[in-house]
């Protein structure tokens, strides 16, 4: 009797697990399958492509689409944003986690509050400003507004990581004659490297996925980032949406992120949940 109910229970649990995985992966799988269909049977709804074809991928890298350039733009914008945000955030987060000073709680609250800010509220005025000073279609016009969400995200994540490290580490270093600066550089930074790395990944993904800023600040195809470029892919005629190549490009933009996520899943989960559960 009991074994039967436990069997039922574990069966139900596995069904639940499968449902969760299916829910998460099915749409992504559909993107992958559609991208591998030849253009002629793109509207096929079978679960596996009858013929695997890389036509769509070739179409993505057709020089007329300028997709290679868009990938490069994305890499530059997201990369520089991440590096700048991490650079500033490491110092600030260290102060937030380790030093005692006035208004600390208020300052951290303000920084976190900024990350919840509607991006459009800064895009509208900055669009006008950047139009006036001729910054439209430049990298800095995308990097500067991106700092508004990347920096708070990085500060918040890193503060949690630094807070998890025991105080005794620096105390020991300082007893051994290090200054606080040396303790930070020689003890804390190397030990916090995993945390810094995770924060970098999370920040990079956020910057890589940004759409509104990139859409507003560019009007030249050569300066668009990958998400904007893909959303503007054109088919042979105006009325034909090139779903095949859009799916292929979507796979290309997502796969690096998925690989990163799979490799570093443990750390990313720790980073994402750091703020919520202590």
């Amino acid at each position, binding site marked *: 009797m009991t074994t039967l109910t436990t069997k039922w229970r574990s069966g139900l649990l596995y069904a639940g*697990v499968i449902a*969760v995985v299916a829910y998460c992966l099915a749409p992504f799988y559909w993107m992958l399958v559609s991208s591998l269909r030849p253009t002629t049977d793109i509207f096929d709804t079978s679960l596996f492509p009858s013929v695997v074809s890389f036509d769509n991928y070739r179409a993505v890298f057709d020089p007329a689409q300028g997709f290679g350039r868009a990938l490069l733009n994305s890499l530059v914008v997201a990369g520089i944003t991440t590096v700048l945000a991490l650079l500033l955030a490491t110092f600030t987060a260290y102060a937030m986690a380790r030093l*005692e000073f006035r208004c600390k709680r208020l300052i951290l609250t303000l920084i*976190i509050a900024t990350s919840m800010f509607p991006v459009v509220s800064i895009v509208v005025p900055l669009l006008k400003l950047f139009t006036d000073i001729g910054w439209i279609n430049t990298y800095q016009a995308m990097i500067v507004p991106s*700092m508004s969400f990347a920096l708070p995200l990085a500060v918040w994540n890193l503060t949690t990581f630094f807070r*998890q490290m025991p105080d005794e580490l620096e105390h020991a270093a300082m007893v051994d004659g290090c200054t606080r600066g040396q303790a930070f550089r020689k003890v804390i930074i190397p030990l916090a490297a995993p945390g810094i790395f995770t924060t970098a990944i999370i920040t990079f993904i956020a910057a890589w996925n940004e759409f509104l800023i990139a859409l507003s600040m560019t009007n030249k195809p050569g300066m668009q980032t990958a998400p904007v470029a893909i959303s503007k892919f054109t088919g042979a005629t105006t009325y034909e949406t090139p779903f095949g190549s859009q799916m292929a490009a979507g796979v290309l933009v997502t796969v690096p992120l998925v690989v990163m996520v799979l490799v570093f899943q443990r750390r990313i989960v720790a980073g994402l949940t750091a703020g919520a559960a*202590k």
Partner: protein
Amino acid sequence: MADTKIPPAAPVGKREPSEPASRRRTRGRSRATAGSARMAALLVSPTLLVLTIVVLYPTLMALNESLYGTKGLDPETGFISATEPFVGLRNYADIFGEAGERFWNAFWNTTFFTVVTVALETLIGVAMALIMHKAFRGRGLVRAGILIPWAVPTAISGLLWRWIFNSDGIANALIGHQVLWTTEGFHAKVAVIVAEVWKTAPFIGLLVLAGLQVIPKEVYEAARIDGASPARQFWHITLPLVKPALLVAMLFRCMDALRMFDLPYILIGAQKHSVETLSMLAQNEASNVRFGPASAYSVLLFLYVFLVALAFVRLLGADLTGDVGAGGRKRKGSRIPALRRRTEVTT
């Protein structure tokens, strides 16, 4: 934000032990922090400076800009103006007039999307978390899978769902009849909600799972000995203890849903009445060089977001900053972190 009151800057180096228990710092830290105020200023000011430039200054600019009209025919003088005329609060007043229809439509769309998506995400997310928490085998696989919707860029997920919801797409094939999902109408709202919930429910699941994992097993054992049914255990133990994690997750989702842009913009399109959100409206006005109204809309959206965040923090007690300045994890106190945090919030 619930208690941003700063404890009176205790003289660094000799802290009285008579501080309220909830604010007690770990002992032995004070010496290390002597003279740290200047260093803190040095370390924190670059971030504050950058945020002032990229957030505060544009916000003030938007406030100022919202008081100006658009270039063009000046209705009072009849001349064509080369500069934007000062119109005072007219951009705001217009919301209550004829031009207000588009604003209120965007406002209700935004509110509708936020309420519906966050409610669905919370239900699905909590269910996912409970499943993942119970499952021992395959947990790594589930956790990897659950991160994938989060990692897919929103713009790409918009394209993906437009393909799924295409008139000849898989969604129609599955339900067996033709719905033109991406045309104007209520079904367009449904399409946006489905796509949004797919992408973000796993995120809530992840945060709730983290909250579940810190609940000690003993609590459940005690409840079982006392004869509590699984339903009662969930209602009286699990839910109260994951509430802090869940509230923070919901707050983040709300803030994110209120500024929704990418998904309806790509999935359905710009200037579509049934899915236009406030962000889309402001961006559309700005890209048509109507900076005055655009700024007014973005200021109103900002206020709306601010009020919702305030309501979360004040009414529900969502605590964002956690243990700031409170000595981190290893503090003595209640064995259940969530409980400890709850008492802190209410003080």
